[in-house]
């Protein structure tokens, strides 16, 4: 008879299952240097462009001159959100490309463990992607984003959360509509950029659009960043606004993702993944 070699796997959460998914993606990264290069390439290019633009604006704009590096800081923080979203979505898409999602969902892996593993991979990918440009910004422009100190952690956490929200949403769409929705994983987040006030204050937007912008967490984060850089003040109100909105959106999009898992089981989508 069968000698049981498995652990009791009935718990609603098991770290080894989350670790399995993380390990699977780390194995892929280890064998594919283009994937690793891609993570750092675009943030570095963006930082270089905005670094030189910053130097020019600093000489020609009193606003930028007041806080050297505000544009570099903005672009690096925007990349946190973008990379967080992409890190989540690409890890999900890897399973689709490998036509492996059905196999995963017939193991004891639970959807919320899958989500947790994807957020962990997103964090890893974001750190790999943003460490080189942030260090290069110190070397080239003398701008050290780490000088922001603890507020940087607050901005980082909020922007990671927003990236995960978008990643959850696009992954759920890919789960439901297949690879035809793949391009959304790359481009959907750009729709947030005009409303995020990355490079300009939200007050520049038409009044009605400001209301929309403040319904999104990044607007609070980038206003908070400017408050630190221009006035040396950490705005707790903006931080808690962003965190509350992120908690709401993350809960809503997690529920949306889980609902799409249910729809996929109902429609047999796990059996026809990949195309």
């Amino acid at each position, binding site marked *: *008879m*069968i*000698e*049981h*070699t*498995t*652990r*009791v*796997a*009935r718990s*609603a959460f*098991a770290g*080894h*299952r989350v*670790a*399995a*998914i993380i*390990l*699977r993606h780390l*194995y*892929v990264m280890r*064998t*594919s240097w283009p994937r690793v290069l891609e993570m750092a390439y675009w943030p570095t290019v963006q930082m270089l462009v905005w670094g030189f633009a910053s130097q020019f604006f600093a000489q020609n704009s009193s606003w930028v001159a007041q806080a050297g590096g505000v544009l570099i800081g903005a672009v690096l923080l925007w990349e946190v959100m973008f990379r967080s979203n992409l890190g989540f979505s690409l890890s999900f898409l*890897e*399973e689709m490309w*490998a*036509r*492996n999602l*059905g*196999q*995963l*969902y*017939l*193991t*004891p*892996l*639970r959807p919320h463990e899958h989500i947790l593993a994807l957020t962990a991979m997103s964090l890893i990918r974001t750190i790999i992607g943003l460490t080189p440009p942030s260090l290069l910004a110190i070397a080239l422009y003398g701008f050290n984003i780490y000088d922001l100190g603890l507020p940087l952690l607050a901005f980082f956490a909020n922007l990671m959360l927003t990236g995960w929200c978008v990643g959850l949403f696009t992954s759920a769409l890919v789960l439901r509509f297949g690879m035809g929705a793949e391009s959304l994983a790359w481009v959907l987040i750009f729709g947030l950029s005009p409303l995020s006030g990355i490079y300009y204050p939200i007050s520049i937007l038409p009044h009605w659009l400001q209301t929309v912008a403040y319904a999104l967490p990044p607007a609070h984060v980038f206003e908070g960043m400017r408050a630190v850089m221009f006035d040396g003040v950490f705005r707790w109100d903006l931080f808690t606004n962003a965190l509350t909105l992120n908690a709401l959106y993350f809960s809503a999009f997690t529920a949306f993702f889980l609902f799409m898992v*249910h729809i996929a*089981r*109902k*429609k*047999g989508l*796990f*059996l026809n993944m990949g195309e």
Partner: protein
Amino acid sequence: MTDQPAIHVSSLVKDYGEVRAVDGIGFSVAPGAVVGLLGGNGAGKTTTISMLLGLLLPTSGTVEVLGHDMTSGDRFAVLPRMNFASPYVNLPYRLTVFQNLKVYGLLYGIRDIGQRIRGLARDLDLEPFLDTPARKLSSGQKTRVTLAKALLNQPEVLLLDEPTASLDPDTGDFVRTYLQDYAKESGCAILLASHNMQEVKRLCSRIMIMKQGRIHAEGTPAELGRRFGRASLEEVFLDIARAPREVAS
């Protein structure tokens, strides 16, 4: 030994829009039994297996594995005790065979994963290509790796979808012998969907033949031969497959 069936299906229906893929089937598989599921393309075999795996929700009916409802969250209690293999599903192709098995071993919470993988590699002759990426495997190698993945957790219920498709006769025979021994030694219940009549006849104590989502005939190979007045299982299969299609009412 318990009286509880390893697999129990009752009045199972699956509709895809207007199309009824599975039409009110019911059957049980006892612990330790090897049962064959035969049927032409589109007969409903894969749909049935998918519902048994919990990957697909039925339109109506019940589907239980080891006493657990596969349509609800209750399935997570039994998923560690069952597994599935098919040559038609992929493993992450960039990962080596060892890496793939390690990832799945972790998902199933296997203790001493390395030892378990080495044991399976020895039994299924995977040792020469344990460090080969899955994308570089031949069909035969891939099938054996998929089988190793399915046996990692020493399942009490094993669902197999054409496990020896695309294998040469020697490798096919090797896999069949292994499955036969595994079922005998472990007491694992196996539901085997296949088009290979010889394979089904050799491995299965009972056979169900599906057509248009229904089970049209059921019994031992000898019983089916007698009932249809045919000498071989293949002839029985052809009789059922070529019978006039029923018109949906």
